[in-house]
Each structure stands twice: as structure tokens, then as C-alpha cells.
């Protein structure tokens, strides 16, 4: 597999380690009244879609950036990759 790194161009998937669902960017509010059940979902429950999936990859053998890669899990087609930091900042900015 090749991953289109936003700043380094296409890179071989061997250079990366895989984490999974990009929902891990959305760490729940630890002070919310339902924090425990929200964390339970966050830690243990993942969607496993057949189709388009946004997932986290770490460029461990490269520039050590975390990427959000959009991939079709059926065809392995990679539809895009963004810096996870940019995605996380945008979400915080929009209050999402």
C-alpha cells in the first residue's frame, strides 16, 4: 500500500504503524457527568465499516507525524491523507 503523505508525497505503508479509527481524536470530556461511559465507548468500541473509513497512521519510520488516512476497507483504495494535528485543531476550532 502507498499512503499519500501531505508533506512527503506517496510513502510505502511499511514506514507506518497503524492505530485505527480516527474517532480516537475525539477524547471525551473527563469532567462531564457521563465521563465514565463516554470513555468506555472511546476506549473499547470501534466501528468496523466495510467501505470508507477514516483511520490513524503514524509515520514512525519517517517524520513521526500522525495522519488521518481515508481508506476504503473493501478495495484498499486510499482516498486521501491529512495531518492529524490539522484535523484535531480544526475540530477544536469548530467546537466539535
Amino acid at each position, binding site marked *: *500500500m*502507498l499512503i499519500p503523505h501531505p508533506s512527503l508525497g506517496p510513502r*510505502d505503508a511499511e514506514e507506518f*504503524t497503524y*492505530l485505527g479509527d480516527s474517532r*480516537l*481524536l475525539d*477524547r*471525551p470530556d*473527563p*469532567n462531564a457527568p457521563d*465521563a*465514565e461511559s463516554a*470513555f*468506555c465507548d*472511546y*476506549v*473499547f468500541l470501534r466501528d468496523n465499516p466495510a467501505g470508507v473509513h477514516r483511520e*490513524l497512521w*503514524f509515520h*514512525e519510520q519517517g517524520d*513521526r*507525524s*500522525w495522519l488521518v488516512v481515508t481508506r476504503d476497507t473493501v478495495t*484498499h*483504495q*486510499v482516498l486521501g491523507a491529512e*495531518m*492529524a*494535528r490539522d484535523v*484535531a*485543531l480544526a475540530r*477544536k476550532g469548530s467546537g466539535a
Partner: protein
Amino acid sequence: MTRLSGGLIDRSRTLSFTFDGKRYHGHPGDTLASALLANGLRLMGRSFKYHRPRGVLCAGSEEPNALVELRSGARQEPNTRATTVELFDGLEARSQNRWPSLGFDALAVNDLLAPFFTAGFYYKTFMWPKGFWEKLYEPAIRKAAGLGSLSMRPDPDAYERGYLHCDLLVIGAGAAGLAAALTAVRSGARVILTDEDFRPGGRLLSETETLDGARASDWISALKAELESLPNIRVMQRTTVFGVYDHGIYGAVERVSDHLAEPGHRVRQTLWRITAKRAVLAAGATERPIAFADNDRPGIMLAGAMRAYANRWAASPSETIAVFTNNDDGHRTARDLAAKGVHVAAVIDPRPEARACADYRLIAGGIVTGARGRLGLTAIQVQANGKSEWIDCGAMGVSGGWNPNVHLFSHHRGRPVWNDALQAFLPGEGGPSGLLPAGAAAGCFSTAAALRSGAETARSALQEIGIAARLPNLPCADEEGYTIAPTFYVPGKKRAWVDFQNDVTVKDIKLAHAENMRPVEHLKRYTTLGMATDQGKTANVTGLAVMAELDKRSIPETGTTIFRPPFTPVALSVLGGGDTGLHFRPRRLTPTHYWAEGQGAVFVEVGQWIRAQYYPRVGETHWRQSVDREARAVRRGVGLCDVTSLGKIDVQGAHAGEFLNRLYSNMMATLKIGRVRYGLMLREDGFAYDDGTCARLGEDHYVVTTTTANAGLVYRNMEFARQCLWPELDVQLISTTDAWAQIAAAGPKSRALLDRIVDGFDLSNEVFPFMACAALTVCGGLRARLFRISFSGELAYEIAVPARYGHALMERLMELGADLGATPYGTEALGVLRIEKGHAAGAELNGQTTAAMIGLGSMVSQKKDSVGAVMSRRDGLASDKRRLVGLQPLDPAGKVVSGSHLFALDAPRSLDTDQGWITSACYSPHVGSMIGLGFLENGDERLGEVIVAANPLEGESAHLRVVPAHFVDPGGARLRE
């Protein structure tokens, strides 16, 4: 001798080789199979199950029968196809799966017992008694139904791995592949042309047809010369593309020196990972046989193979041959062999309208119903017009039609589609994106059509990636059509082989049908059709056709046959690609490694690190003597240990403190500059993850340490937290594990020793107390970092210097500390010291323990959020009452074994009454007996109690007393001296 005239062999040189110990001769350009045929040998192997005598069936990599063992000694190599072995001088080859000899094989008795060995035989017969499969049946069957044997010695040859990139990969250098490569290379595209043969040309090498009126081999030579003169193409012979992977990545094996007696300075094979924007699949087609009674007699081969042996290798299996074909192509074999002076006894064609294409006896509307000659064909039985006759011949070419090589196309769920006119599966929908079939692989069977298809496919492929290519002038070539009538097998009572290598006959397929194993997937597994090393290249379509007929359905309704990688067998050695022995994974050496080696240290692997385990001295005969001495030296004087492998992460930025607050369960932002704090990290699920120290070197500057095992993982998680969870914080991270050599100096005399190297730095307890840190210089100006931390419970320091000075620092400390008794100690003594002190390590932080269990529950701050804090408070974790305790045997000579489970004194031993386990154990020179650490139910309230440690693996149990986890200096006074 059955050597003919002509051929693409170099008769000016003679090569000598042996087969089953007997010497033969051949020429450069020969394969082992062609040379054996030229020497008059038809018998080359024995079948897998029935041990039937077998000859060569094919002339290429699809060969199911002629599997041989090559070479001897450590290079002995089983299951090699004689059809792909390039002859070299001194080649040693042996037949397989026979005893005592190829001509007389005792296990051929299996053939007489064939009525018992039908499909499903194993499933039905070896079911009972239950334990017999593993102990008796399987070993016996494996011995009887084997292929070749392994040398059982390490492979002496080198292998390597390489990476290539191109615009267009052309797979196959036959007519279509060459036309594709020519089209692409002239456009300026970067091209790779691969071919499994040792000579380009594909099927053209085996035919007599002309290109532009000249011999095809002349056109190929001229083209080869042009390609080799151009910088933008890499022509790779002896290279098989075996699999297609995601995003245009292709796996290929180049047999660099398989054709040499010994590789010499070269590698044996190379595993290539080729990244191609587009690829043309010009893999050609494979002929399939027609099944009839005893169609596996040595001498019966595919008609195309027989023609290839005659035209390319000037070899005929016999002086008298026959041909059995249901299509026009088979007639060419009769024509070409007759032209070479071989007697063609008859051509049998089931099509009543069949026409002869040369002067030979044609039996149109006939079928072959039998064959004689156990060790070599002597006659065939032909039925035509209601009459039956035996015709004498020593070999017969059989053609049931050609199957396009769709294998690579079907690697990504590509489904081939049935073509009635060609009676074959062609590439259909799906398949790997960017892979375009051409030539015979796409069903273009005539040479002219294949050339055009190759050129046009290459042009379209390049167009897709924005490269404009023009079609080259292609040579004038054969346009002859190909007509075929479906004949897959000849009905009869005797066995007719479909899958030669796995001995699957028409009868077996009928049995599978009768027993309702009708879907192709069931058929395959029930009969083992297509499951041999040739993956049924010559068998699958025929098997499917037989099942379709029995099921009274069409072939496409019955199913299809798809393939998985690898296209042909790939040796594990080349997949390993040289990652063997010391190259298996990176080895990380500590800065004092060579110094320790000089001291005679014994090393141990800790992840990728090679660390000194202990330093034996003269007279010490057991590792325990060395370890006990080293541990005592630390408690009494001063010991030195390289602790570089512990992870070091530099954390800087305005929000560094806040960032660490969120990562560690305890407070880090409040740490004073020049101080160190122990830190515990949790996982987000609330369990303890890793521990280390956190030193604050400046307002915006911390250095944290991790355990050796988790150094990479903790860094990865910290980057995740920085980039994904809290990107708004101003903080930067870098791993400095390799940048700093770090040496622990531990023991009551460590201050005295360090005093001798620091440059005017006050080490007094008042100025530099326990848990202090500083940047300073040592040894007259060398920059260093000093941390007053202790893993052993003694007064101790860790000193870090730039990695390249680690060796010199160790030497200097040993030299200056000689009078203080400075002693190097390894990981073993390090472990003893930390167990004596009750420090948790990897055995305690195993992912199943909470902060409370290791006695650090109060460290999880309730005042702030941190990773894992919320989940650590959930019921299941908070209610876990197991606590870390020390354990000591009542009998000082008694054993403490880690992994033992703990029970109350009189409790029965069961999972319900299990109260914990022992995590770490060692002999403690300080205590004078073995000691252990373990987690025990309510352990903190049971000090003094005697419990049972059960070790059912060894059938042992021991009485242990529960004691505090600190065996040394429980108050911590020594740390603070």
C-alpha cells in the same frame, strides 16, 4: 538418442550432468527436462499418491510431474520443476518419491490399492481412534506420500531484497510483452520488462512461424539489442512476478544464480518489490490436457510442450509420436515434428470436420481410449467410426485447448469470464487496478493479434498516466485463427487423470459429485484438485468442466477458478530476503558494549538491545556467583551499570509541564527546576502502563525516562497525545535515547566516586539531595547530566554524557574507583537489587495491573485529568484488592518460583480460591534466601501470614511468608544519606 536438428541450443559446447547418479550430456540452452528427453529418458518422477511412473507433461513452470531434487549437501533443493531448471555443467539431479529406484518403486503398490484411495479417503478412514491421527496416521502418510526431502541444514546462500519503480511494468516477454515494451520504451516511459524464462520470446521461441519473413528468434534478438541500448528500460530475465498487491505493488523473484553451480559472490535470488503506475499482463496461456484412460503414461505430454521440445530444444521424446487434439493448434505439433523427421503415427481429432495441415494420418472424429506402457508409452488405443485399434507410438502430444494465464489478474477478486469460442476463461471485471491483460493472457491467440494487443494495451496504459505513445511498426506475422470443440475427457471405466500432481482422476470428481461436494470450493478440498505445488494450472478448468457435465450445467454456472499468490512456488529463503541470523532484526549496542566485551561480560537480548547480563570473574563457575558478588558490591561499595537503553524523551515548550501533567497520573507541572520525580503512566483504559522518571532541567525543559521495553511505544503515544489530543499545547518532543550514554553509579561509595569526575560541582546532600538533577561538566569540560535517582535502594546517581563518551566514561569511573571497589554489574544484578528494594518492573507492569495494586494508588491525582484517570476509577479496577507484597520462604533453602499461584494455607487449589501470583523471584544475597514479589488478595493487610505458592507445572508447592515488598531499607534512609 532423440536429438533433432536445429533448435536454440549451443551445440559448440557440451555440458555434463547426472540424473539418479547416471551421467548424461546436454548443451547450453537446454533445460534439465529437454536434456533428459534428448538423452532418451521419458520417465522422470513418481506421482504423489499412487506412485505412478510419470514423464514430463509441460515445457514451462506449470509442470506437475517432473519434480526433481537438485544438488547435494546443504544446497540440496527438493521439488524443482525439471522444465525450468537451466542446465549447467555438473548439475546433479535426482528423482523423488520413489524407493528403491525410479524404475521400481515399492510403494507403487498404492496404485493397486487405488480403489481404497479415492477422494475423501483420508476423511473417511483416519477418523478413529482419536489420538491416532497425530501419532500414527499423519507421520506414516507423510512418509509415503511425500515429495522431495530437505537437507535439514542451513541454506548456505545469500538472498536480498530490492525495490524498483517504473511507469509501466510488462509481465512476460513473449510476442505481446515485447510489443508492449517496445511501444512503451520508445515513448520515454520508465519500463520494466520481466520474464520467467532465461531467454526472451515466450512462445515464439517454440514455434517455426516467421516475423516479416525471417525467423522469429532474429526479430527477438534485434529487439533485445534495441531494448538493452536504451536507458529507460530494465529487462529482467529469470524473474517471476508472483503476486499483485495494493496500489500497483508487484512481488517478483529474480533467480540470480539458480542457473550456476554455485552463486560465488552473487546472491542466489532477489525478492523485488516493484511499484508500477501501470502494468501489462502478457503472461501468455497454458495448455490443458484431455483426460482419458491411463493418460499419465510417461511419453504422453501436452502437444504444445512436445512442439516446444522439438523446435526450441531439438529434442523429441520418441521417434514415433501421435497427437490427440480437439483444436487446430495441436495439428501444428504433428506438422512441426514431421518436418523434423519424426514419424507421426496418427493425429486423432474428435472433430469430424478436422483437416490435416500437413502430410500425416488424420483420424477425424476419433478419440483416444487407452494407453499402454507402464514405464514409457508403447501404444495408444483409438476409437473411431465404431472401431477400436491400437497404434504403436512412444509419445503422444495432447491438446485440450489453451487457458489464458489470468492468475495475476484474479489476485484482487478479479473474476475471469468464460468465453465459448475459445472454451476458456478470460480476464473479466474487477482485478487489480492498473493491471491490463494483453496477448494470449487476454485471449489473443495468433501471433499477429498478440503483437497488436501488446502494443495497444501499452499505449492505453501509458495514456492513463499522461504519457503519449505511438504504436510501433509491428512485423508481419501469423494471423491464423484458432478453432476448438469442447472435449475435456473421454468417458471410460479406467482411471483418467485430471490433476497429475495430486492424482485426481475423473472418477474422483464423479465421487465428489455423488457425495454432493459440488461447489468448486468443496470439489477442490474434497479431492485436492488444484492444491498441489502447481496450483492446478493444467487441471482446474478440466476439473470444472467434468463437474459441469455431471451437474448438467454450463461451466460458468458451475463456477470459476481463481488464483492466489504466488504464481509459482517461492522459497521461504528469498521471502526472508537475508533477514537471518544477526540480520534478523537490528541489534542495538550500548555505548559500553565493547568495553563490557573486553571484561568478558555475558550478554542478553532485551528487545533489540544487547545488554551485559553479568561479568564473570576468574574462578566463578556459576552465573549466580557472579550476580551475587555484583549485587553485594553495590550494597557495600559502588557498582556501575550501563542504563542507556532506558528510553529518554526530551520535552520542551511553554506548555511542557501541562503536557506532562496530562500524560502522567501524578503532577509534573509543579516539579521544581533541578528536581526529579517518579512518574507513572496509565493507559487510557486505566491500567498501569509504564513508569520512569521526569527531570526538570529548565522552566520549559523536561527529560523523561521510560522502561527499555516501552521506549518506542511511549514515544509513539506521547506524539499521539501531542498531535491528536492536545495540538493547542506549545510542546515539542524528541527521543534522545541514542544520544546520551547513561551509567548508573550505585552504592554507599557512589558519591565519593563521582566526586572524582565532576568539575567543581558540590555533591553534598545539602546541595544535591535525593531526586536532584543538574546539567554540569565532568572530566574537565565534558557536558553531562546528573540525576540522583536510585533503582537499587542505595545512595545512587545516574550520569549521562554524549553517547560517544560512554565507553571512556566507564573506563574512567572504573579506573578512579578501583580503591572504592568499583564493580560493573549487569541486568541480572540490576534485577536482584530492584526486587530486594520492591520496585515494580516489566513483570509487575504487565498490562493487567492497576496503580493501586503496585501500591501507587494515591499517585493518581484526583485534582487533574490525565490519560487513564477516568477509567482507573471504574468499579472493576477500583475494587481490585490484590496488592504487591514481598514473599519469603519459611525454609531458607526453599524455592520461590515466579508464575506460581498463591493460595490461603488450607484452601483447596482452584480458580475460585486463587489469590494472586508471584511476579518476580530471585536469590537475594542481602536476605540470604530466595525472595519474591507478587500480587496477593488484600496483601497489604496480611503481612506476616503464611501462604502457599503452587507451581503445578512442576508439581511443586511451597510455604511462603508475606512480608513488606521492601526487603532493603524500608524507610529509605540509604537513599537520602
